């Protein structure tokens, strides 16, 4: 499962492996948000999307995750069109800006959610939750109520929860946006190392150029325009 950054190959010219977003156009409530936007992410790559607040970064992630249907354009994974595949069958994880932990479940219940959906047996489920919590440095906190967590802890739980569903791609929507700078950089580096170690490709959205450079192999910039955001990178 582990691989060093040096050993990784970055081959963005091949669009038949990994994620390929082609000419996506979205308007929400009559307002153009994304304008014919294209993007590829290789199976072992971390890409950062940089742009000011409200430019449509989150919308792009939602299109990839299957939560928003684009007006035009195609999203494929390994060459297979995802248009008719609903969000829950895409195996694409999403970490929200403010964690969005389920308030009616404790930490273990959140981390184990993806396992419950697949129907993992109880014994295996428990050890897997422990393993996931250890991954994000929260070992032993499984029984905590989610509203007792700090902002950084909540984000780690959200990350463990997303990884528990074994995603083939992880989308991170300003996951550290609400945290202070020190914590943001430390967590950023941790997440980068963890995802590399696990070999999970990621699209990481942020409005902070330093964070983008820190977490990603490649930084793309979303630029607002009248017809919707465009990519430059």
């Amino acid at each position, binding site marked *: 499962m582990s691989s060093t950054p040096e050993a990784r190959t970055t081959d963005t010219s091949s669009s038949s492996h990994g994620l390929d977003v082609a000419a996506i156009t979205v308007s929400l*409530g009559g307002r153009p948000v994304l304008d014919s936007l294209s993007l590829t992410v290789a199976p072992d790559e971390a890409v950062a999307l940089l742009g000011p607040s409200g430019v449509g970064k989150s919308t792009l992630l*939602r299109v990839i*995750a*299957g*939560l928003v*249907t684009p007006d035009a354009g195609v999203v494929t994974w390994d060459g297979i069109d995802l248009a008719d595949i*609903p*969000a*829950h*069958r*895409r*195996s*694409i*994880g*999403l970490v*929200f800006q403010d964690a*969005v932990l*389920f*308030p*009616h479940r404790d930490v273990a219940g959140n981390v184990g*959610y*993806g396992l*419950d*959906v*697949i129907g993992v047996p109880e014994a295996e489920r428990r050890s897997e939750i422990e393993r996931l919590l250890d991954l994000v440095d929260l070992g032993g906190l499984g029984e905590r109520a989610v*509203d007792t967590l700090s902002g950084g802890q909540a984000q780690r739980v959200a990350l463990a*929860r*997303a990884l*528990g*569903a074994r*995603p083939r791609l992880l*989308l991170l929507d300003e996951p550290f946006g609400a945290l202070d700078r020190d914590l943001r950089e430390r967590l950023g580096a941790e997440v980068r190392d963890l995802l590399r170690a696990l070999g999970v490709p990621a699209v990481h959205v942020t409005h902070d150029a330093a964070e983008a450079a820190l977490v990603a192999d490649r930084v793309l910039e979303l630029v607002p325009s009248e017809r919707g955001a465009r990519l430059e990178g």
Partner: protein
Amino acid sequence: MQPPAARWFAWLPVVFVGVFFALPLTTVLSRGFSARGVDLLTSAATWRILGFTTLQAVLSTVLTVAVGLPAAYAVQRLDFRGRRLVLALLTVPFVLPTVVVGASFRALLPESWDGTLAAILVAHVFFNLAVVVRVVGGFWAHLDNRYEQAARTLGAGPITVWRTVTWPLLRPAVLAAAALVFLFTFTSFGVVLVLGGPTTTTLEVEIYRRTVQLFDLPGAAMLCVLQMAAVVVVLIVATRLQRRLTVRQRLSRSGVALRPVRSTTDRVLLGITLVETVLVALPLLALARASVRVGDGWGLDWWRALAVDGPTTRDVAAWASVRVSVSYAVATVLIAVVVGGSAACAIAYARRGADALDSALTLPLGTSAVTVGFGLLITFAVPPFDLRSSWIIVPIGHALVAIPLVVRTVLPVLRSMDPRLREVAATLGASVGHTWRTVDLPVLSRAMGVGAGFAAAVSLGEFGATSFLARADAPTLPVQIGRLLARPGEVNSGQAAALSVVLVVVTALAVVITERLRAPGSASL
């Protein structure tokens, strides 16, 4: 600068509720626990009626929640043309007087349904649908949809998302709505009196029957006690359950964006909602039709008959009840605004005891109207307080129900008032009394207007308490409708339908005027 002393305002509501609510309640308790009252507890018939009352309430609640949930979802989460209109139409039944609901279903359903459980259930669902749509829908509108989105990205399909995320988060609101519907249907009087039969009778109707037909006052009092005990038990259970199920969650303050109808599930749920909206209109259309349906043709015979006196001196023309109802409504408004307004001031200005006064004033709302009416009847039927033959007892009964509504409307306005306004007035040389008249009162008057509208609507439609209190020669509109419905023949059911239409129009006027008065953005009931 202190606000005026709370005790200046407190004495009137305390005396009013003490004399007209607490005193009758103790009379009911002492009568109920007399030897003859307690005898009734050993009768199988009593337990059969309690059993049926509970059964129909449970079934009504389950059905109303089942029918209401799709509509709550569609109206608050989906984006479709006519959404607001659908919400308004689904709310209409709840503001209808119960006797009109009964009359409408009499007009709609075939005669073979008379006195059946099914007839009671459909009428209860019709009447209480708005509770589920409003209470659950209001919560649903603010339920952060990212919880559901997070679940989907974790691999949960639509059914799993509903089972593991939406339902657990929504459950407290569903429970709250269900508890309300259960209480309303457990203490339902007008609907069951009109639509029920000898084997389909509830505690409320039995209390009425024992009082009016059998003159068994101790028995009726015992049933009141039984019913209050049941209501208290339900309230305790519901509160406990709700405390256990409540999830601390961040709610979206501005409400979640409506989403376009795309998925098949959404289409089905919207379809169900639209069908329900049409079905809700049917009973009222049937009522209007029955008022002009004469034999096999059409005509205004029943409308004309409203103005004709009956054969006996007590049988005044049905039309006379309009004047009676309107004058009672005016009296109710006066009492409720003065007493309720004073109560709101007392609660707002009190430094201690505010909550106690607030709860004491809300109690009549939690007590069934039949118990309120019955209590007033047996307390004030004997000298030296023989008010029974006086007309004032009816508006007093109505005011008991209306005062909590007036307090609820006036209190928030009063509490949100900037205390520095009073300080300014004081520095300009105004006395405490003068400050109240020139600063507090103008702020209050608009809220009082809204409260007055609610009080008028309550008074016009009130049936449970009025059935006990109205004088035989001066029936109110609902009582007159109830009488006509109790008599056989087309001439009576036709007049009942026509008079119901009149009552709907008069009540609608009161509601519309109130809505106009209400400041935009203020709380709705």
